[in-house]
């Protein structure tokens, strides 16, 4: 018996019984201490033992392919912070692949190679330098503790996420219409080995707050070394690197669009961007990505991607 003066009466062991005490038979009401406590133990154990979900194969959900009935479906921008000597990073790449299978072009990934695991070695394997000045700026913006990591639909430095939660965040952001429609037309200028993009924005509804537009170039299908802890040996010579960030066309943080108060409905913006490609980049594998985000919260409002 416990005596706690704050209570109206001392608590009895019967108070802790999991069944309505008054409904019990006289025998059950007055069991021996051993029986009583053993019963409580067994009831508790039974409750806990039922707290297991055993999943049967297949373990992966069936594809959605991103079909939607909305007119300007929201797309999700995913920043993957990675490195070619990061042995766990291919897990994040697989997560992106699975999301793309499920949601198609409504997932727009960009892989930034930065930090310790992106440093090129001086000879032998992993000599390619995928790092960029923009990636170096992002290193300052985000305080990276571990890789792989990333952000989903945000550039907010406080919202880094482990790769395993990207899917959940992506699906939470993918429903409904986006308030801004982004259009991209691309052109490859062979003589200059340059790309040109025409980006148009139109506000489908009024939006408050300052918005920014950023335009990036990424490259798919780059075959190079990558460490992958799921293989033995871990060093994969012909790993396919996708969504590799190459450069920004209007700066890492882009440029302001609309005005400080936001955009009125049907506000439009149009701008052209161009960039001479590095000789090592293959234009046919390049993707132009444009996205609009809120200046204050760094939340991404909409993103669009266009291949060449």
């Amino acid at each position: 018996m416990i005596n706690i003066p704050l209570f109206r009466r001392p608590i009895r062991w019967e108070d802790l019984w999991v069944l309505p005490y008054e409904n019990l038979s006289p025998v059950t009401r007055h069991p021996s201490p051993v029986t009583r406590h053993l019963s409580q133990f067994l009831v508790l154990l039974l409750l806990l033992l039922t707290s297991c979900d055993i999943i049967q194969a297949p373990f992966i959900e069936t594809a959605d392919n991103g079909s939607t009935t909305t007119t300007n479906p929201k797309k999700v921008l995913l920043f993957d912070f990675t490195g070619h000597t990061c042995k766990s990073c291919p897990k994040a790449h697989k997560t992106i692949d699975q999301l793309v299978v499920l949601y198609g072009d409504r997932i727009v990934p960009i892989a930034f190679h930065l930090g310790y695991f992106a440093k090129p070695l001086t000879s032998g394997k992993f000599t390619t330098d995928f790092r960029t000045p923009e990636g170096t700026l992002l290193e300052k913006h985000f305080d990276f503790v571990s890789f792989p990591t990333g952000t989903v639909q945000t550039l907010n430095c406080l919202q880094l996420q482990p790769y395993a939660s990207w899917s959940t965040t992506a699906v939470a952001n993918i429903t409904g219409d986006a308030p801004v429609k982004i259009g991209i037309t691309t052109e490859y200028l062979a003589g200059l080995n340059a790309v040109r993009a025409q980006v148009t924005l139109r506000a489908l509804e009024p939006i408050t707050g300052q918005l920014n537009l950023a335009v990036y170039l990424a490259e798919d299908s780059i075959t190079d070394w990558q460490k992958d802890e799921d293989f033995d040996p871990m060093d994969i010579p012909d790993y396919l690197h996708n969504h590799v960030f190459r450069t920004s066309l209007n700066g890492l943080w882009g440029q302001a669009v609309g005005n400080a108060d936001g955009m009125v409905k049907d506000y439009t913006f149009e701008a052209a961007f161009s960039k001479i490609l590095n000789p090592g980049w293959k234009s046919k594998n390049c993707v132009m990505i444009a996205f609009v985000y809120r200046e204050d919260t760094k939340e991404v409002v909409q993103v669009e991607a266009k291949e060449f």
Partner: protein
Amino acid sequence: MKRRILTIIVLIGSVATFAQTTGHLSGNFQLDAQLYRTDSLIGAPKVDEKLLSNSYANFRYDFGKFSAGLRYEGYLNTLQGIDPKYDGVGVPYLFADYQTEDLGFTVGSFYEQFGSGLLLRSWEDKNLGVDNSINGVRVRSTPIKGIRITGLIGKQRQYFSLGKGLVRAFDGEISLNELIKSWNEKTTRLTLGGSFVSKYQKDEDPVYKLPENVGGWAPRIQLNRGGFSLSGEYARKVNDPSADNNFIYKPGEAMLLNASYSVNRLGINVTAKRVDNMSYRSDRAENLNKLLINYLPAISKNQIYSLMNIYPYSSQSKGEMGIQAELSYQLKRGSKIGGKYGTQVSLNFSAANSIVKNAINDTTPIGANGTLGYSSPFFKVGKDVYFRDLNIEISRKFSPKFKAILMGQHLKYNQLVMEGKGGMVKASVAVADLTWKPTDEQALRVELQGLWTKQDKGNWAMILAEYSISPHWFFAITDQWNYGNSDVGKRVHYIYGSIAYVRNANRIQFSSGKQREGILCVGGVCRNVPAMNGLTVSITSSF
């Protein structure tokens, strides 16, 4: 404003007076502040704030069977090497507790461990940035002498909030010697125990079909007779696809066995461990030291000397098999080899390998996500060496004023598995720790250490000199020299000096100099410590 300050002073005074007459107030305070200098040579990054600090204050009030307490934490901003998501201040630990012989309960935050922790251990270590305390309700009961029951439900701490998952746990332990009257006086002591833990996290993932309730159980035994002791625990959990295991659906398991024997001056201790897919967190997406429900101890020797800690072992939740054996012997006092004051000799060996993983069929790669992953024969040891450590320690007191500890170590360290970079490091380490006490108040301690390896950053040498004048003053200077670095430009002297003043239960310490990048491990849980060049101020106080 004046009235508010006055009210707080009166309130504190009242509590102090009340505590003096009707209870006991205790606590402690700690402040660590670091002023950083950029040093590209050692890789010390630029810190925009220049000065960072972590501070903690615990207050605990005990009154009979009742106790309550809180902990203030301030990260302004978080010290380098600790997760910057801690930035800010708050009171993340707050509890009230009432205990009687029959029943006790805790509401608020608490730490708990079932058995050896294979299934549940919530704990904190500020140096590691680990705090997975549970916030909820805990009930403890001893319904019959010899039977102890603990049940709890809560959420784990994550920075200044709580994690997504819910933890439900139950533990029972029976001491047969206490329970059975005729066993009360027996020299053989037998304790049986078992725990069950279940976590709940909503499945919002579009890719995988995830179990929302993941349960695990762990029976254990403890047997003692005279100088002999045997303990063991086996833990198993159901399918728990997570970031740690690449979203495979294989059940996890872990086993820890320990046997020890001591007689006269001889002590023998053997520990064996097997872990297979046993990471257990209340948020399946998390990584590193965040939201861990269980604890997988490293069974290597916990080395205290700096160069012996350059390559520490950390537990591998994906799979490992390991063994540790230690033999210690006290050479007889007054004998020819034991010397006038006796000599202690300890020989320790630890080893850890991978486990064997076989494909579940011909078409599925081992460990492929969204599958059962692999099968693993329980008793087969994998071929990959993770760690080896063979070391000997000889401790001898030569006179009342002089004693020495000599240590030798040879190790293999799979850097790729532990840190995700490099390869196998083979290293030898030697240490001489000499202490001279010219008077009762003064002591001079000198450490000479050397590490030799052809891999990683090459050879190191270290000298440390500590001079203490008890009870108030402490001075130390250390130089770690990476003289064997293959990059001649990085053959750096890491010189670091400290001065500390102690009075009663208060201590203030100033340290300045360079600290090398390294890995700090406690019990197999590790964190990366970035290189640092600067000034550190530490203040600790307890009451």
